[in-house]
C-alpha cells in the first residue's frame, strides 16, 4: 500500500543560525527510515513520466522500488547504470524543473523526493559498499576528454564502461570542474566529488591534471601525435563577465569565479591554507542566479553582512527557489529591483561604497521576462567593502583559438550537431562549452550523448 502523504519527507538540515557560520553540509540527508518511508510514496507508474525529466534517463521507479524493499545496493546499481555522478546529482540537480516536475504525485501535493532518494542511495553505497568496481575489458580504442567537469566525467565514465581507454585532461590541480571550484562545500562536500572521481579511476579512466589543452597540448596534437581517435571537449564556460561601470577594477571587486575558487578549490577560509582571501564586513553580490546565492552564502560564512543586488524582482530570481530560501534563512539581505551604477573606493582604491539605482519592471523582453527600467533620480549608496560580480560566464576562447577548423557561434559556444559532433571529424563537445552556462545535469546529458556517438563512430 502506497504512502499517500501529500508531503515529501522533509530534509533534515543544520539550523540556519549555526550553518551560516560553518562550511559543513547544510542538508544532512535521509535516514534509512525516512528513505524507506519516502520510497513508498512512489506509485511505480507504468509510463514513468519522471524519467522524461531526467537528462541521463535514470530508471527512477525501478531504483525507488528497490529502496522500498530495503535493497539499497540494488537501487544504487540501477542508478549507476545510467548516471556517473549520483551523489552529486542528488544534491545539485534542480529536480523541481526536471524529474520531480513530471511526478504524478506532484499533481495533488508534493512530488516524490527523487533527488533526496538518489542522494540517500549514493551516500549509502559510498558508506557501505566494499571493493573496487571491476575494470571492463579493453576494446583497444583511445579517447581524450578535455575538462573534468560534469560533462567530461560522464562521457569518460560511459566510454570506460564500454572498454575504451580514456584520458581526462584537466587544467586545474583537482578534477571536478565547477563541482570543486564553484559549488561550495556546504552544498556539495568535496570528498564526495573525489569519491566519484575515484570511482572513474577504478573503471580505468586516467585523469591528467595540470594540463591546459590549447597550451600544454593542443586538440590537434592529441589526435595527430598522441594517438587519440576521438576527443570530447567539455571545457565549460569559465570566462567571467564584469559590469561595464566605473570602479570595477578597485580592490575588493571580484568575479564570483575568483571568490568561489579561492574558497572552494584553494580552501582560503581555512587557516592552514596559503591562499589569501579578503574577510569583508559588508558585501554586495551582484546577480540573482545560483552562483550569486553560492557567493552570498560563502561571504556570510566568512562573517560578512551580505546584500544580493538584482535588477529584477524576487519572483524573477533565476536561482533555484530552495537556494533563495536557504539564503534568506541564513540572513542574506535581498536588494531586488536595484542595479549598480558605480563602485566607489577610498584613497587606497579599497572599495567603500556601491551606488545603485532603483528599477521597475516594464513589458516582457525577447527572453519573455519583464524588462527592468531605471527609475530616474532614485540613486542611493550602500556602504560595502567588497563587491562580487555573479553575472554569468561565457566559454573560454583558448580551445577555439588553438584548434583548427572548430566552428564557434556568436556567443563563443562550440557548434555541434544532435550527436555532439563538432565541425571537426571525431571531435565532439558538450556541456557549457556548447550551451554557455547551464546546469550540471544538462552537461551530464551532453556527455552521455557524445559518449554514445563516439562509441558508434569508433566501433564501426
Amino acid at each position, binding site marked *: 500500500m502506497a504512502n499517500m502523504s501529500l508531503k515529501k519527507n522533509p530534509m533534515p538540515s543544520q539550523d540556519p543560525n549555526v550553518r551560516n557560520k560553518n562550511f559543513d553540509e547544510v542538508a544532512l540527508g535521509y535516514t534509512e527510515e525516512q528513505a524507506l518511508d519516502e520510497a513508498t510514496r512512489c506509485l511505480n507508474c507504468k509510463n514513468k513520466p519522471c524519467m522524461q525529466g531526467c537528462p541521463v534517463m535514470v530508471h527512477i521507479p525501478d531504483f525507488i522500488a528497490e529502496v522500498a524493499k530495503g535493497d539499497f545496493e540494488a537501487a544504487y546499481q540501477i542508478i549507476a547504470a545510467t548516471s556517473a555522478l549520483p551523489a552529486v546529482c542528488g544534491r545539485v540537480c534542480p529536480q523541481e524543473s526536471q524529474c520531480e516536475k513530471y511526478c504524478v504525485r506532484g499533481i495533488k501535493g508534493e512530488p516524490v523526493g527523487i533527488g533526496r532518494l538518489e542522494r540517500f542511495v549514493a551516500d549509502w553505497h559510498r558508506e557501505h559498499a566494499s571493493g573496487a568496481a571491476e575494470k571492463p575489458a579493453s576494446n583497444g580504442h583511445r579517447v581524450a576528454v578535455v575538462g573534468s567537469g560534469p560533462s567530461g566525467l560522464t562521457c569518460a565514465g560511459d566510454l570506460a564502461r564500454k572498454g575504451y581507454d580514456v584520458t581526462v585532461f584537466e*587544467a*586545474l*590541480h583537482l578534477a571536478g570542474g565547477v563541482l570543486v571550484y564553484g559549488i561550495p562545500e556546504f552544498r556539495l562536500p568535496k570528498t564526495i566529488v573525489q569519491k566519484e572521481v575515484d570511482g572513474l579511476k577504478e573503471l580505468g579512466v586516467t585523469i591528467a*591534471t*595540470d*594540463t*591546459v589543452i590549447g*597550451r*600544454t*597540448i593542443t586538440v590537434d596534437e592529441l589526435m595527430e601525435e598522441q594517438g587519440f581517435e576521438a576527443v570530447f571537449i567539455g571545457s565549460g564556460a*569559465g*570566462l*567571467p563577465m*564584469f559590469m561595464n561601470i566605473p570602479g*570595477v*577594477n578597485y*580592490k*575588493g571587486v*571580484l*568575479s564570483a*569565479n*575568483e571568490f568561489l*575558487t*579561492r574558497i572552494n578549490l*584553494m*580552501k582560503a577560509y581555512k587557516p*592552514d*591554507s*596559503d*591562499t*589569501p582571501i*579578503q574577510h569583508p564586513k559588508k558585501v554586495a553580490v551582484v546577480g540573482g542566479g545560483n552562483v550569486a546565492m553560492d557567493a552570498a552564502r560563502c561571504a556570510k560564512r566568512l562573517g560578512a553582512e551580505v546584500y544580493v543586488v538584482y535588477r529584477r524582482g524576487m519572483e524573477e530570481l533565476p536561482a533555484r527557489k530552495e537556494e533563495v530560501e536557504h539564503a534568506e534563512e541564513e540572513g542574506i539581505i535581498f536588494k531586488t529591483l536595484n542595479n549598480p551604477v558605480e563602485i566607489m573606493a577610498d584613497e*587606497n*582604491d579599497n572599495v567603500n561604497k556601491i551606488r545603485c539605482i532603483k528599477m521597475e519592471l516594464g513589458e516582457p523582453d525577447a527572453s519573455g521576462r519583464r524588462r527592468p527600467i531605471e527609475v530616474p533620480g532614485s540613486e542611493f549608496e550602500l556602504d560595502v567593502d567588497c563587491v562580487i560580480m555573479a553575472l554569468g*560566464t561565457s566559454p*573560454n*576562447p*583558448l580551445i577555439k583559438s588553438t584548434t583548427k577548423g572548430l566552428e564557434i557561434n556568436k556567443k563563443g559556444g562550440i557548434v555541434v550537431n544532435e550527436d555532439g559532433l563538432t565541425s571537426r571529424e571525431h571531435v565532439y563537445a558538450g556541456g557549457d562549452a556548447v550551451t554557455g552556462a547551464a546546469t550540471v545535469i544538462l552537461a551530464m546529458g551532453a556527455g552521455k550523448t557524445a559518449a554514445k556517438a563516439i562509441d558508434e563512430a569508433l566501433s564501426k
Partner: protein
Amino acid sequence: MYRIVRKEALRPTVTLYEIEAPLIAKKAQPGQFIILRTDENGERIPITINAYDPEKGTVTIIVQTVGATTVKLSHMKEGDCLADFVGPLGKPTETEGKKKVAVVGGGVGCAIAYPVLKKFHDDGAEVHAIVGFRSEDLVILEEDFKKSSDKLIVCTDDGSYGRKGLVTEALKELIDAGNQYDEVFAIGPMVMMKFVSKTTEPYGIPTTVSMSPIMIDGTGMCGGCRLSVGGEMKFACVDGPDFDGHKVDWDLAVKRNQMYKDFEAHKYEETCNLFKKEAE
C-alpha cells in the same frame, strides 16, 4: 610528478630550480609563464619561465625568496617534487622583425628578460641590455646577458656593483645618445616598468612590458589578474602577460597588487617561524 632535478643558489636569496616537466619544456616560448604549487595546502603562484630544454624535458625558473610560498620552495631539495606545475601559460613575447631593441630587466625580472633578449639576439636584432638590481648580492645572469647582447649596462641602486642608479637613467642616456630603438622591452617590478614606460613615452618608442598581477588559475577563468589597458579590461594570464606599456593604467595595477599585503606579511612570518622551529 614535477621533480626538482637541479637547485642552485645564484645569490643568497635568489635560487634557480630546474624542474622535470617534459610537456611544458616542449612547448615553452620566451615570455610565457608557469603556475606552481609546492604542496597540498599551497597557493598557486605564477613564475615566468627562464629556460627550457625540450630534449632533457626540463623547465628552469629563477625565484627570489620574498614570501611564504617562495620560502617553502627554498626549503625543497633536489629530488623533491612540486605538487603542481602548469604551463606554458600566456602568450609568447613577439620578437620578430625588430632591428634594434633595448631590453630592461629589474631584479629577478632579469630571469624573464633573458630568454626574450636571447630570442631578439638570435633573430638578428642589435640588442642593448640594461639590468638593474638593488645591490651587488642580487646580481644574476650577468654572463648570460653579456653573451647575448651588443651592449650591457648593469646598475645597482646603492652603487655596490656596476653603475649606481636606476635603469631609467641609463635608458634615457642611451636614447639621448642617438640610439634609435624599434622597441623597448621591460620586465621587473611594476614601479620600474611604469617608469620605463614614462621614460620612452615622450620619444614615442614602442614599449612592451610583461605584467605580473596577482593570479590564481592563470587560464582566464577568474579575472583576478585583470588590468586596465587603453581603457579596456584585459586578463593578464590570457591576453598577456605582455602589454603596451604606454596604455597600462599603472597606478591601478600597482595598487591591485597590494590587495593581500597584510595576509602575505603574516603568512611569511608564520612560515619562517615554522621552519625555524623545525630547525631547532
